[in-house]
């Protein structure tokens, strides 16, 4: 394996975590990781060595997710599926995770955020990217990123407080 391939393998856990914030279910998250890896391999010529592989791969995943969301929205207008939201708790149990109730409440609160805010929170709060890196991944100016981050955080704090989780 060359540096690009090794770097991509090392990124898998972070890509999966980002996908789990974006997607509604564990299966969807896995599909998102898989598609991101496939596209990254196919488009590796677009990666410039010396730049950050994580930002590049996150950008690919963000684009795939947004494209899927758009096509799902078109589809939903036609068929209005009943099982649109698979409960996250079932997934956590399936994955054998033993999470505290607080953690589950945080996941639910995250899922309730609009996509833009959820992506900003995932990149900065959870993955720890700098504002500049996160803005680049989202393809927005720094000011847009910070306002999404502020609104996302305010909503999370409000939602968790209503549920008695002390953030």
């Amino acid at each position, binding site marked *: 394996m060359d540096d690009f*391939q090794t770097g991509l393998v090392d990124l898998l856990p972070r890509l999966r975590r980002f996908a*789990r914030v974006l997607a509604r279910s564990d299966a969807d998250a896995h599909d998102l990781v898989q598609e991101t*890896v496939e596209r990254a*391999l*196919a488009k590796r010529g677009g990666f410039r060595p010396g730049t950050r592989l994580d930002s590049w791969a996150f950008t690919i995943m963000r684009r795939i997710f947004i494209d899927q969301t758009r096509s799902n929205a078109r589809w939903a207008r036609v068929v209005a599926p009943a099982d649109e939201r698979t409960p996250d708790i079932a997934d956590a149990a399936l994955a054998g995770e033993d999470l505290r109730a607080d953690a589950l409440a945080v*996941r639910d609160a995250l899922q309730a955020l609009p996509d833009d805010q959820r992506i900003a929170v995932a990149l900065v709060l959870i993955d720890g990217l700098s504002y500049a890196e996160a803005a680049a991944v989202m393809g927005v100016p720094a000011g847009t990123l910070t306002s999404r*981050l502020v609104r996302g955080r305010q909503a999370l704090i409000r939602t*968790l407080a209503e549920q008695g989780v*002390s*953030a």
Partner: protein
Amino acid sequence: MIHYDDETLMRRVDGELTPEAGALIDAAAAADPAIAARLATLRSLRSLAREALPLVPDPRDRDLARLIAAAPTSPPLAARMSEALRIAFAPRHAPLWGGLAAACFVLGLSFGWLSAGGSNSGFTVGPQGQIADAALVRVLDTRLTADGADAEGRSVGLTFRDADDRWCRTFQSGEAGVAGLACREADAWGLEALAPFQPAAGDLRTASADIPAPILAAVDAALAADPLDATAEARARDAGWN
């Protein structure tokens, strides 16, 4: 007492303030329990969020790692390229290319450009890889594939968007003996790939024989959508590559 908005406190928690500005916030928090409480809430949310989404090993990552390890380092040329190339270099340009080839042959200006260090042709590249040769920049900015080659044998081949949504164009410079791929970023053409180029002499041939294999491989790897047809190419040029 100074009022700090949520964004400022958030920046403090995320380490996005200068040390001086951060110290100001910390001093304010020491003096004002309300500010301290807001900072504590933000910090607590951050650790709660990380706790809720831990980095955990996943058995499915092993399959993905195998997929990554098995990937070719240089992707194969996609079949859809051949048609685009055929159109891009239609046979009507063949006599022109033939003439160029003869000129290059006579003048001995084919290979050896790269090994000569590139100082003799006026083809210069800036520190960030941006093409600084004014004549070549003009060709990339304005020339259409259908225009064929200019007097110095410079021409443009394929035009397409890459995964980063940048405009990319392949070019050939008969006199300099190079072919390359350039992508547009921050109002400049950045050099993505460069290879020695010798226009083939004689009869009709497909374009894929003209574009060197390293450039084709670079195109294939960068391509995010099919190359433009002549109409779309002209439209993109007229719009100033925006």
